[in-house]
C-alpha cells in the first residue's frame, strides 16, 4: 500500500464518528445482560452490556453504556419500583439506546429508557427453570427425607453477626420461657447480593467438615428487598442445601417471601424468630409428653390400687355374708352330728344325739321323732 495519504488518528476517528452517526440515527430497543454497573458520583450510571451465545457462557458481544444523570433520575426509581429491585450485575434488561462515538472515549450506547417488565419476566422464567431442574434432579425432597434429631441442641448457624435477624434468633432462643439451653455456633457469610450464594456455600462446607459436632444447620437472615433475597433462588445454593448431610432449616425474610432455598430445605419458617420457636417447640412438646406419661403412670397406679381395694371389699363382704354366724344372728340354728354339719334330714335317725348351734350358745339334743317332708 502506498503511503501517500497519511492521516492522523483524529481524522480516522472523526471519519468513523461521522459514518456511525450518519448510519445510526434512530433509537434502538436492545436486550442485553449487565456485566458491570457503576453509579457515578455525579449521578450518571455506567454499565458494561454483554450478550452470550445461546446456551453458552462465553461472551459474544460487549459494549459500554451510559445513563446520563438527567435520565437516570427518572429511570432508576421507576425501574426499582416496578421490578422490585435495582439494576444490577447479571440482570437481563431491555433498553432503548442511541449510538454515540467519541474520538476520545470510543463507542458507547446512551440509554434513554429501560423496560422493567422485561427483567421481571426474565427473572421469573429463570426461577421457574431452576425449580424444574431441581425437581427433575430429585433435589426438592432430598434434605427433608433426613430424620430430624429428637433433641437438636447443637445448632450450626449460617448468618451474618450484624444482621438483625441473627440477633432476633439468639434473643428468642436464649430467652425461651422454659429455660432450654442450646449450643450455637455461628458461621459467618454474606447474606445478600451476588456474593451470597458462594459465601453461604463455603460456610456450609465448613459446617459439613465438622458434621458430627452438629444436629442441625440453620440458615437465617431478616427480611429484605426482593433483590437482597434473590440470592436464595440460586441453583448452586439450592443443590448444596438439598444434599447437605444434616437437616437444613431456613428462616429467611418475612411472610411474603418464599424462595427456592425454602423449597429444598428440610423445613422452612418465615423468620429467624420463628426458627427459634421451631427449635424451642421441639423440646417443649417432648417435655409436655413426658409430663403426660408421668401422669398416666400415677393415674394407672392409683386406678390399680382402687381396683384391688374394691376387690378386697367385695371378698370381705362375701365372707361375712356367707358366714353361718350371720345366719344365727338372724334366728336360724345349725345342726351338727358327730362334729359334722347336717344338711339333710336323712343323715339323722331317731335317738341320735345332735348339737344345735344358735345365737348365744349350743344345745345338746336327742332326736325323739322325725318327719320327712316328702312323706
Amino acid at each position: 500500500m502506498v503511503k501517500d495519504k497519511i492521516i492522523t488518528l483524529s481524522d480516522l476517528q472523526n471519519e468513523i464518528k461521522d459514518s456511525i452517526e450518519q448510519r445510526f440515527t434512530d433509537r434502538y430497543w436492545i436486550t442485553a445482560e449487565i456485566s458491570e454497573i457503576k453509579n457515578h458520583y455525579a449521578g450518571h450510571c455506567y454499565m458494561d452490556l454483554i450478550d452470550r451465545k445461546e446456551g453458552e457462557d462465553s461472551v459474544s458481544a460487549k459494549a459500554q453504556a451510559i445513563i446520563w444523570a438527567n435520565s437516570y433520575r427518572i429511570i432508576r426509581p421507576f425501574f426499582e419500583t416496578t421490578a422490585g429491585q435495582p439494576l444490577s450485575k447479571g440482570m437481563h434488561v431491555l433498553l432503548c439506546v442511541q449510538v454515540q462515538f467519541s474520538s476520545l472515549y470510543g463507542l458507547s450506547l446512551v440509554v434513554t429508557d429501560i423496560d422493567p417488565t422485561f427483567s421481571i419476566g426474565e427473572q421469573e422464567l429463570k426461577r421457574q427453570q431452576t425449580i424444574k431442574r431441581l425437581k427433575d434432579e430429585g433435589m426438592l425432597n432430598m434434605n427433608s427425607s433426613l430424620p430430624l434429631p429428637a433433641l437438636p441442641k447443637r445448632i450450626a448457624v449460617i448468618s451474618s453477626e450484624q444482621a438483625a435477624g441473627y440477633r432476633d434468633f439468639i434473643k428468642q432462643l436464649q430467652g425461651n420461657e422454659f429455660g432450654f439451653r442450646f449450643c450455637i455456633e455461628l458461621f459467618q457469610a454474606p447474606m445478600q447480593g451476588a456474593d451470597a450464594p458462594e459465601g453461604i456455600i463455603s460456610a456450609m462446607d465448613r459446617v459439613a467438615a465438622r458434621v458430627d459436632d452438629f444436629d442441625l444447620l440453620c440458615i437465617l437472615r431478616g427480611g429484605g428487598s426482593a433483590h437482597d433475597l434473590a440470592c436464595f433462588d440460586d441453583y448452586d445454593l439450592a443443590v448444596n442445601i438439598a444434599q447437605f448431610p444434616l437437616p437444613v432449616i431456613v428462616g429467611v425474610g418475612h411472610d411474603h417471601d418464599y424462595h427456592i432455598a425454602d423449597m429444598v430445605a428440610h423445613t422452612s419458617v418465615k423468620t429467624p424468630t420463628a426458627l427459634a420457636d421451631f427449635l424451642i417447640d421441639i423440646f417443649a412438646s417432648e417435655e409436655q409428653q413426658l409430663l403426660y406419661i408421668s401422669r398416666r403412670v400415677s393415674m394407672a397406679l392409683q386406678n390399680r390400687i382402687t381396683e384391688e381395694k374394691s376387690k378386697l371389699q367385695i371378698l370381705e363382704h362375701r365372707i361375712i355374708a356367707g358366714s353361718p354366724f350371720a345366719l344365727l344372728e338372724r334366728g336360724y340354728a345349725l345342726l351338727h352330728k358327730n362334729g359334722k354339719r347336717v344338711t339333710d334330714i336323712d343323715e339323722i335317725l331317731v335317738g341320735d344325739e345332735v348339737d344345735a348351734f344358735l345365737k348365744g350358745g349350743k344345745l345338746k339334743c336327742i332326736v325323739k321323732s322325725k318327719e320327712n317332708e316328702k312323706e
Partner: protein
Amino acid sequence: MKKSDIDYRTALEELQKIVEKIEDPNTDLRDISKYVKRANELIKRCRELLREIEDNLPKIT
C-alpha cells in the same frame, strides 16, 4: 445419630411400653411396683436429656 439422641429415643420407647403394662389390668400386682419404679427412672432420665447441656460447644452468650 449422637448418643444422647439414641438414649432418648430408646428410653421413650421403653417408657411407652411400660406405661401400657402398668395400665393393663392383667399385669400381675407383684410386677406393678417394679414397672412403676422403672417408669419413674426413665422419665427422670428423659427429662435430664432434654435439659442437659452439651459441653463440647460454646454456649450462646
